[in-house]
């Protein structure tokens, strides 16, 4: 069930009022049933996989808490292996097998192990990571093991964030299921505003740009450098609006019911450095990798070469998390390289800036930094969007040549794409300087908010792409 479908709208309109009508002790059951229905709307049988990992982690959490010494670690390792094992099998089996086949083929051998026709369970990467964060936090002593099986199941399966995050931490989310949430008009309005803004980002911007991006990237050999450059820039905005839009809908729908999910995006394209970008983009995932991998590897409290290695490894694995393809690894590696390069050259760059007295023009510096960051990130998106490394390299080469005429697809598509970009730009600029997640979130601004949101809804109806396009991050 996609967020951008009438099915979900009706589902949400049914689930939410009943949630508030029910006595508190029955609410978790209702939410759990709704979440099961939501998940089973995709591929019903895959709920068994979810059930398997929930049972493993529920008991692992209890045993970790009850045990002492090495046993605690054993239970943690068992839980992590189970989760990573499920993820590896469904997501990476064919990728690993194909690479083995290539290697063996190079040595004139055949791979006797066949590929499997496996459909990736939707949201697997997200709920697996969320489940792992639970057992790790119990192990670290930061979270008490949840004794209520239903509540723990709901922690993993809570439908607003089940299939594409935000990847929550147990300290933030678990206790909220025990609290009784009273209906709040203000929270309802805030939640609805976030949802409408999320739908705007998805339907008016992301799905509009996708038409042009798909047309160019699916026939990349036929297009000029200028066209590929524009399509790449469009893709950078598309993936942001697609994912951030989803997150806003998820956070908004949870907020209406009284739940606070973590912010997942903080207008990343206003970043002035790669490091800042990664503090604003997919925050729940980047903090997950920081807290559970980067710090475990030693973080920056190691030798300098080891520090760089840690950063690089984290980004490589982050790339691999996104998909079973070398293009994602290259994407992650490129971002890791950017970060390490930025750290290495920081002093030199500061010295150059100082000598050139560029710091006397802070606004100009900001604009240049934002532009350079956007260009670097967009270059990495080429690999993210490409179906092969060869395609990515070929596209980069053509972009650098910047030759040929600009392909417009058709005038309507192009005009709508540009118009939606302008609207987004205005909205994001306003939000960056008011530091809120959606326009006019404060309740005192109800009059302009009413008008603005009515206009946003009209935009969605008139220029939103309403063909029920899939969310990009669903495939992860």
């Amino acid at each position, binding site marked *: 069930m996609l967020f951008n479908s*009438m099915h979900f709208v009706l589902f949400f309109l049914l689930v939410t009022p009943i949630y508030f009508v029910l006595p508190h002790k029955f609410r978790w059951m209702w939410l759990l049933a709704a979440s099961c229905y939501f998940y089973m709307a995709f591929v019903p049988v895959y709920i068994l996989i979810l059930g398997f990992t929930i049972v493993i982690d529920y008991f692992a959490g209890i045993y970790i808490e009850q045990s002492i010494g090495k046993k605690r670690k054993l239970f943690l390792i068992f839980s992590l292996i189970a989760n990573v094992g499920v993820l590896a099998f469904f997501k990476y089996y064919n990728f690993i097998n194909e690479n083995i086949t290539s290697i063996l083929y190079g040595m004139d051998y055949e791979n006797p192990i066949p590929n499997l026709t496996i459909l990736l369970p939707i949201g697997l990467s997200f709920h697996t990571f969320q489940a792992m964060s639970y057992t790790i936090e119990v192990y670290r002593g930061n979270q008490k093991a949840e004794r209520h099986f239903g509540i723990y199941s709901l922690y993993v399966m809570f439908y607003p964030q089940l299939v594409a995050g935000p990847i929550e931490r147990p300290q933030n989310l678990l206790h909220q299921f025990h609290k009784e949430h009273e209906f709040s008009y203000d929270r309802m309005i805030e939640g609805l505003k976030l949802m409408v803004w999320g739908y705007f980002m998805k339907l008016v911007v992301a799905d509009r740009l996708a038409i042009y991006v798909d047309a160019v990237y699916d026939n990349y050999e036929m297009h000029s450098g200028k066209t590929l450059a524009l399509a790449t820039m469009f893709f950078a905005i598309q993936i942001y609006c697609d994912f951030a839009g989803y997150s806003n809908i998820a956070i908004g729908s949870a907020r209406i019911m009284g739940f606070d999910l973590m912010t997942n995006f903080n207008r990343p394209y206003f970043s002035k450095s790669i490091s800042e970008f990664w503090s604003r983009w997919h925050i729940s995932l980047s903090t997950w990798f920081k807290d559970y991998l980067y710090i475990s590897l030693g973080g920056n409290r190691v030798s300098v070469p080891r520090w760089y290695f840690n950063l690089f490894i984290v980004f490589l694995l982050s790339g691999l998390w996104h998909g079973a393809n070398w293009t994602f690894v290259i994407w992650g590696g490129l971002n890791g390289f950017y970060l390490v390069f930025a750290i290495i050259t920081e002093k030199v760059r500061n010295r150059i800036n100082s000598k050139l007295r560029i710091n006397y023009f802070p606004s100009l510096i900001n604009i240049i930094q934002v532009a350079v960051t956007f260009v670097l990130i967009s270059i990495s998106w080429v690999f993210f969007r490409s179906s092969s490394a060869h395609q990515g390299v070929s596209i980069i080469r053509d972009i650098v040549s910047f030759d040929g005429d600009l392909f417009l697809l058709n005038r309507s598509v192009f005009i709508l794409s540009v118009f939606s970009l302008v609207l987004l730009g205005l909205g994001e600029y306003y939000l960056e300087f008011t530091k809120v997640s959606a326009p006019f979130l404060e309740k005192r601004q*109800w009059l302009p908010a*009413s008008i603005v949101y009515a206009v946003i809804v009209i935009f969605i*109806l*008139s220029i939103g792409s309403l*063909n029920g396009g899939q969310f990009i991050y669903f495939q992860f």
Partner: protein
Amino acid sequence: MGHRIYRIMFFVFVLVLSDQIFGAFLRKLYFSSDQKEFSKLRYIIRDFKADVAIFGSSRSLHHFNAKMIEDSIGLKVYNCGFAGQGMEFSFLQFKNIIKNGQLKRVIVEVSPNILFDKESNEKLFLLAPFVKESEVIRDQLIGKGTDKIKFFSEVLPFNSLLPDLLFNKNKVEYDSLNGFEPLISKKYHRSNLEINYINKTNYLSNSIYYLSKIIEESISNKINITLVTTPYHDLSKTESRVINFIKDYTFQKYKIRFMDYSKFEKVYNMDVYFKDKLHLNFEGAQLFSSYFSSDYIKG
């Protein structure tokens, strides 16, 4: 509490008012637009006056020179073909046209890629502006469960049309071309088009269903119907098999005429007459239309 209800009502009022006003503006623009697709659709749904209607996708649109056929057979011919559309779209056009009782003959272009094209249903939304005035279109678009809710909006039927309404004055002189849209000066481009018929046979039932409905309603309204497969640049064995399947199926069930030009020898495999594998260019369409006209009369 009172002021909250007031605020909600104010928002709903602003939303509904904006929807009504903007929707009315879009409706006015749409129904006075010279844009080629919009004006052609308006003619077909509201003002159709021809004796012979030709239905199908872009392979109808670009292949049948309606004026040439009209001069040959002595009946008023109109090419109702629409790029990217399938049988369900053709059926809806057909149902709107037969209301006036003038239609005498129907020609339907049937091709494997159309009968198996899963995308065609999605473009039914092109007919959304006519939801209010055409019961057939309303039943088809709104009849599907949750879609009923969408059409409370006045703006939604005109979704994505605003740039074409405001900026696109691409009018084709349909009065002189009778709906035909030639592909002029198009050099042959070899495409990588591959349709996996095996995987897409589950869509066969929907397209065949609507084709059958067009056939049955033509027969019941005593309208002469002919099925035609227009020329391809080249055909795979699978595509030939599919065409033969359609031919056998429709003949066995309905005993109607099927004219197969899929391997029309005057143009087959000749780049000079094609824009791509599926579409004749203007010269190819002229050649095909002249042969088709004389064969059609003989039949």
